[in-house]
Structures are given as C-alpha cells and as structure tokens.
C-alpha cells in the first residue's frame, strides 16, 4: 500500500499548498469489486483516495470537464491511462501546465468479475499486493489470493507501459517492461479468416450495439465539441438502430480515432453488450504501425499522430 | 384488438398549406386546411393549445395554434425559422402537403376569464399563442363575455413585429381594446413607443383590478414582466403564461417535456404563475 500512502501524501500537499485545486483519483465503490472516480477538493477528503488492483477507469478524460478550473488539476494515471494524457495534450484539449500528473506504475489489474465472484460485495479492501504468481487481497473477512494467470485483467496481459509515459510525480517504483502477450494476437487470427467469416463476425457484434455512445463518451480521443453522431443536420447516421447504421457508427468512429487511439481499452470495458472494440481499434493500430513504423499513439509527447501531421519528406505516391 | 388505423394519436392527418403570410424576415404564418373535410370539422382546438406539424421526410415539430377556434375552416400557425423542421416549413409554398395532429395540451382558462378585463403582454413570436385567445375574446359571439382588452406587444425592430395588420390596424379599431406597441431601439419611420416590453408595461402601469394578465415571449422578457406585474399588485393567480419545451410525441409518452412530474404537452403549456412557482425551475 506504499503507492496509496504516497498518493494521499502528495494529494494532501498539493491541496494544502494550493498547487492544485482538484485531485482526480479513485475511491471505494458501492461494492468490493468496484471503484469510483473521485474528485477531491478538500484536505479532509484526501483519505478517500485509494489505489488497488481494481482501479480500472481511465480518469484522463475527466480533465476536459475542468478546463475552466482556475487552479491546476491533478489526476491519477496508470501506464495505459498516461498515453491518454499525451493524447489530450497533443490535441490541444488541455494545456500541459494546467495539470499535475500523478503516475502510478501498475503491475496489472485484477478482473473485477473474478473478485466479485469470490468476495462478499459489502466487504472493504484493507490492502492489496501482487507478486509474480498471485494477487493478494486483504479484506475485513480475511486474505484472499487470486492467481495472476487466471485473474489478471485481459487488457493487462499485453500491457505495453506498466510505468506511466508521462508524470509529474511517480507514486511507486518504475516497473520495467515485461514479457507480454502479443496485443495483435486476436487481430491476426481474425485477419486469417476468409472475408465472409470476418464480415459475419462483425455483423454479429454490431447487430447488438445499443448506440448508447458509452464507447465514445469514455474515449480520450473523442473530444469533438459536437460529435457528428449528435448532429441533426447533416444527418450522417440515422437514429434507427439497425446493422447498417450501427456498422457505420463503429467504422466511422474507428477511422476517426485511427492513429490517435491510445489503446487504453476503455471502450471495450464500458460496452454494455460486450462488443470487442479493442479488437477493432487494434486492427487499425496494427495497420498504422505496419505502414508508418510508429509507436503506440500517446507514447511520446513529441511524436504527433501519423495521420495528423505531415512533413515535406512524406512520400506522396498516392497523388 | 386495437385497430391502429382508427385512433392512432401518433398518426397525423394530411393537410394542405393554402396561404403563407410573411410576418418578419424569419417568421411566416401558414394557413392550413385538412384534406378531409370531416377531420377539419372535428378538429376542435381551444385557445392556447398546440399541434404537431409534419413535413413528411423531415419530421415533426410542436407549434402553437395561432388562429382562434372561432375562425372556422382553417388553422393558422406562425413559425419562426430556428431548426430543421421550421426551416423545411419555410421552404414550402401554398399547395404543399403537410401533416397535422392534435390539438394537444391544456388551454387558456377562457371560462374563468369571463367578466374580467384582460391584459396581454407579448414579445416577438410570443404573440402567436396569445393571438388565439385575443381573437377568441374579440370574436363577435364572445365579446360581450369579456371586459376591456389591453395588448402590450414589442419586438426588436419594426421588421420583427409579427401580425402587423392585427396590432397596427385591426385590433386598435375593436371596441374596448387598446394596443400598445413598442420596438427595442428607435428607427426611422417609427413614431410609436421605443423601449423594452417590461419597461413599457411599467410605464402604462395597468391596474390589477378584476384582471388577468397573460404573457408570452422570450424567457428574459417573461422574467422581467412577471417581476413588473408583481410590483403592480397582480397576484400569482392573475398571471398566466405559456411555456415552450422540446416535444416529440405531444401525448405524454416520449418523456422529454417534463418539468418535475408534469408534462408540458399534457399538463401545459398554459400555467398560472402560482402553478409555475410550484414546479422545479427546469424550463
């Protein structure tokens, strides 16, 4: 729990010294397996802040709600979330000097469903730790261990940056890159299928889309002041919920975030009908990497998205 | 089994635009007639009610009926060009087909108003719903039931005055009727009053005795008119206003025009100030 202590200490200092007017972090949720985004403004609320392997939400996008904040806003980010910070800065959504980045080197998260299936929902987590083999969660009802192999969150298996790529305060020891599952494993499998099968696969997924727009609202690359899907005129996508409109929605969105998607996995997490959006976005990410030989977007503040920047030396073979 | 065709409230009746009057650069009044004479005959609106106008292929919008029910055989809607549907309406010409369903909502309490003087205060396109009641009480068959009529009306400029014929010629000539017209800023050729409606109202300083005040206009005007009326001694039960909310179904199902647990399309759009004060400030 060293990280949690560091987090509270620094948050307290920032608020007391008025270096920040707001700290965005995590607090316990309504049940043991959930956390909530917390917005801390007062010193006495700092102890609500927690860090444990259930802190899944990417908090970076909340910064957009506070771009009129008079003071600086501090935000807690994991490695994956930190790429979203770079995204927002590069897109001129937030000025770098207005934010204080509290980076947490994250060894990987626990699948909340696995936790929920074993723990009393009303208990509280007292402490958590992780070694090579297992997560260990101490609650009021004892210590529970979860094998890392079985209960590591899917997206963490292919984690690229355990340590945030950008931070003003690093709240724990840096975690070096480790062996990871190929993030494009599933993409490659799908690519190997005949066109008909691929098409059927996505039809089945998009068919059940509710068009709740959670994927868009949570996405750190979706920052348009007015989204095309909300425009009445011109009407790019009909309000009708059917396969054709749903497909158009997902493909337009995928191409809109192409080269800017930081692969944080939030769209996948929030989808209420489990549409594998990471798979869709990773297909484009893979193509972009193949075409332009660039790192995952958001990795480097000075490296602009390949489709959003140009130089005189760009090849123009297509002209 | 329910027969969808015979009483489907969401299905409009085809109607034809018979005349279009240019009121201001962005307001037109449309005279419409149902294609089926029986539907025309059975459409019995009360002053203050609204209807849903369809431009097929574009959609529907809620528009207040600006003609008085005493005027038989047609309906009038005055429409300001603000959105997609109203812009589409503005592109239509006489002879074009539309759809109408309704009438919806409650109405001005014209029964309770009998024997009373009436003070109308309107701004801009806000005169449209009031006009239905003004013409209703001024109609020959009803005139004797009501006392004196005062109408205070204002717009940004002379160009923006709606119903110019009514306010400048027809209504001032009616017995027991006074019309006060004002524009926000002085301009050449205008010899009438210049100033905002609430200020003009205070200048005129009508007595609240035996009177109802009915107001409609932009929210900021309504706000100051209500303050002025209160200062003059009007009670909350003497002041009536009509609200505008985004509506889709018009029949209390689609869930967007609620203010608290009231639906403006069913329980409004006409509210006494006393009722309005009971509602959460979400309009």
């Amino acid at each position, binding site marked *: 729990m060293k990280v949690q202590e560091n987090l509270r200490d620094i948050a307290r200092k920032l608020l007391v010294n008025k270096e920040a007017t707001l700290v965005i972090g995590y607090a316990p949720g309504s049940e043991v397996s959930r956390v909530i985004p917390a917005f801390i403004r007062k010193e006495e609320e700092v102890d609500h802040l927690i860090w444990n392997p259930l802190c899944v939400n990417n908090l970076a996008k909340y910064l957009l709600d506070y771009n009129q904040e008079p003071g600086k806003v501090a935000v807690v980010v994991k490695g994956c979330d930190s790429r979203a910070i770079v995204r927002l800065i590069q897109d001129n959504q937030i000025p770098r000097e207005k934010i204080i980045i509290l980076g947490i080197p994250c060894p990987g998260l626990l699948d909340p469903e696995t936790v929920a299936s074993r723990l009393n929902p009303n208990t509280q987590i007292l402490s958590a730790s992780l070694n090579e083999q297992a997560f260990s969660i101490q609650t009021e009802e004892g210590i529970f261990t979860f094998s890392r192999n079985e209960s590591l969150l899917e997206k963490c298996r292919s984690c690229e940056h355990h340590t945030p790529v950008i931070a003003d305060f690093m709240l724990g020891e840096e975690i070096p890159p480790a062996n990871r599952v190929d993030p494009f494993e599933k993409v490659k499998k799908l690519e190997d299928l005949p066109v008909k099968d691929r098409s059927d696969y996505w039809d089945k997924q998009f068919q*059940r889309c509710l068009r709740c727009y959670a994927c868009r609202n*949570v996405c750190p690359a979706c920052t348009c002041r007015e989204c095309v899907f909300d425009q009445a005129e011109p009407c790019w996508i*009909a309000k009708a919920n059917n396969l054709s409109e749903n497909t158009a929605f997902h493909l337009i969105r995928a191409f809109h975030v192409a080269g800017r998607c930081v692969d944080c996995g939030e769209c996948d997490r*929030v989808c209420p009908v489990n549409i594998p959006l990471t798979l869709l976005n990773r297909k484009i990410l893979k193509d972009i990497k193949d075409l332009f030989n660039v790192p995952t977007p958001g990795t480097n503040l000075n490296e602009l998205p390949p489709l959003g920047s140009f130089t005189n030396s760009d090849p123009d073979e297509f002209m | 089994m329910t027969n969808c065709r015979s009483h489907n409230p969401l*299905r409009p009746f*085809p109607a034809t635009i018979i005349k279009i009057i240019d009121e201001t650069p962005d307001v037109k009044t449309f005279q419409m007639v149902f294609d089926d004479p029986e539907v025309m005959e059975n459409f019995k609106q009360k002053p203050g009610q609204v209807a849903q106008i369809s431009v*097929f*292929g574009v959609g529907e919008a809620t528009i207040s009926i600006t003609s008085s029910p005493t005027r038989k055989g047609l309906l009038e809607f005055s429409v300001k060009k*603000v959105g997609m549907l109203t812009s589409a309406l503005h592109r239509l010409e006489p002879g074009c087909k539309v759809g109408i369903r309704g009438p919806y909502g409650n109405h001005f309490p014209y029964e309770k108003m009998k024997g009373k003087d009436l003070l109308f205060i309107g701004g801009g396109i806000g005169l449209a719903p009031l006009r239905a009641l003004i013409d209703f009480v001024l109609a020959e068959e009803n005139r004797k039931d009501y006392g004196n009529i005062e109408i205070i009306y204002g717009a940004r400029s002379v160009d923006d005055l709606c119903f110019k014929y009514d306010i400048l010629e027809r209504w001032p000539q009616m017995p027991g009727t006074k019309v006060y017209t004002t524009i926000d800023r002085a301009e050449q050729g205008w010899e009438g009053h210049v100033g905002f409606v609430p200020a003009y109202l205070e200048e005129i300083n009508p007595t609240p005795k035996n009177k109802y005040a009915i107001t409609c206009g932009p929210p900021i005007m309504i706000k100051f008119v209500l303050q002025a009326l209160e200062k003059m001694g009007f009670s909350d039960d003497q002041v009536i206003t009509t609200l505008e909310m985004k509506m889709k179904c018009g029949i209390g199902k689609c*869930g967007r025009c609620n203010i608290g647990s009231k639906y403006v399309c069913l329980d409004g759009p006409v509210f006494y100030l006393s009722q309005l004060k009971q509602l959460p400030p979400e309009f």
Partner: protein
Amino acid sequence: MNAYIITRDNLRTWIDALIRDYTLVAPVREEEKVSLFKPVGSFTEIDLNYTNSTISPKGWLFPQTEEMFFFFTSDNQINLEDACKPGTTILFGLRPCDVKGIIALDPVFNGTYQDCYYQMRRQNTILVCLCCTRVERHCFCNSMGGGPTNGEGADLLLTEMEDGYGIEVLTSRGEELVNKYHQLFAVDGDNRVSKTRDEMGKKLASQFSRKVDISGIKEFLDQHFELPYWNELAQRCLGCGICTFICPTCHCFDIFDQSPDGESGVRSRCWDSCMFSHFTRMAGGHNPRPTKKERIRNRFLHKLKYHRDRYNLDGCVGCGRCINKCPVNIDIRQIIADLQEVARYDQLPLS
C-alpha cells in the same frame, strides 16, 4: 387459478409446439457474458438458467426502433400506411422483475392517448414468467415491492421443481396456453407447486446482498429538488445511455423520418435517453437540462418520484442492470442509501 406440473421432457415438447404455433421470444446466451431475449427456432436455443438478460425484454413491446407508418406522395396527395402488424408473441422465461417492468410501462402507453403500437403488441403478447432460482449480487427486487418468485402481472408462472416445472395459471390467456396442449400437463392436486415456490422464495430472500430502504425517499424528494448531492454524482457520470437503454422501465423515445427521395419514406420512433445533452435541447439552443447534473437528477427523480406521481408505481423494479453495467459505478441502491442519509442530515437541525 389452476396449477399444473410438466416434466422436463414435456416442457421441451410444449416449447417446441409453442414455437411452431406462435412467435416465441426467450432468453438466449448470445456471448459468454451477453444474454438477450430473441425469437427462437427450437428449445435447444433457450437458456433457462440465465439470471438476468443483459438488456431488458421491454424491446419486444417497445422496440428500440419501430416503424410507425409509411408515407407516399402521388399527384400531390399524401397517403399514409400503418407499419405495425404484430402477430401473437409469447415472451417466455421472463424474470419476475421484468414482468414488473412491463406493468410499470403499461400506464405510460395507456391513458387518454392510447399508444396503439405498444397496445397492439401488448395485447398480442403472452407473458410466461420463470421464478428465479438464484439471486445476483445486483438484484434488489425485494426492496422494490417485488420478489424473485413473485410473478404478479404474468399470464403463467413457472417454478423449477425437482422433477420438472410447476406452472401456475394467473390469467385466462395463460390457461388457454396450457389447455391447448393439456396432454402435456399433470394437474397439481396437492399444491406442490405453490409450496415449492414459497420455499424457493424464502430461501432466496436471504441471498440478497443488499437491502434497500426506499421508505420516505419520494416524500423527501417531493420537498427537495435542489441537492448538492446531484453535483457529486454528475461529476463522474459519462453521460452515456447505458442505464436508460438496458432499463426495463425507461420509455423515452424520439420520432424521426427517413426518406431517400423526399417523396416517400417512413416515420419511426427509437429509444432516446434523458442522459443525452440534446434530448431536451430546443431548436433555438435553449436547454432546460443543460448539464449532466440536471440530467442525472431527472433520471433518478423519474425512477423514485415522477413515475409514482404520475402512475402510482415505482419507476424502478430492482433488476440491478444499471448497477451492473454503469462504467462509473452509479448505483441506484447507493443513491437511495445516500438520500436516506441526506434526509436524516437535513432533518437534524429540526430535531
């Protein structure tokens, strides 16, 4: 009303017969973690072991997108043609909370203005409820006046038994569905079905992870519209439509036209969400619920107050879907508990 017992083998025969004679809509496991109500072609497609479908089955009475009528222009005449022609549908295997959700929707689409689209589907739909055999961690139907074995509002109520299923007939329409295939059913002479159901009910009552106390909440909200608490909730709300779309009682919709040539086309309606910013935004730009705070307050007041004001029914049936799916853990049980706390705090100066 009568009760019957059907063996597992006969249940299969019965369902296949129903599939042959009607449109049967039943829970189907679409993906590992997605369970949906869909029309089925055979008994084997049905997953009766589900706890709660991902999306509520309300869409079979109030589809997410529903064509209302077609319009045609010819010789400057507009002709309209109705689109709705539903056949008889059996909603099979509904959980009690979802039946309660339908009961909560009924008065919305009833009243002075009959919504013929809903009414036609409703009158042509037979509700077969299936008692729960376990309680999910987000379930709180027992706090909202329902219960995992309370099939009130259904036409038939099924209870899983050791040797098959018990069937309690709640309406004459339900009776018809049994009578038509009477050879498959044995009459329950000694109330075994209701006894089994009672026992199951008692067993499940202790399994709820959280009991919610809604007493006094509506009365508190009657008096308190403006609460800083709504700001707190709104801070983390994403403003997406998950909660409203999966909810069994949310009924907001939009109406829109589609016309490729401007001459003919279709008018449809589709689910809309009070959580979307443009839901109440008027053409001129004014928005009476301009921020997430007003919108989230509206949603929860709708559930806890407005629905009761208008229809004297709770706007929440305790199915727990929104709790399960909200990406930022906005938990209506917690909101109710917090409001109780706020109410107590609010009253402190008085006592």
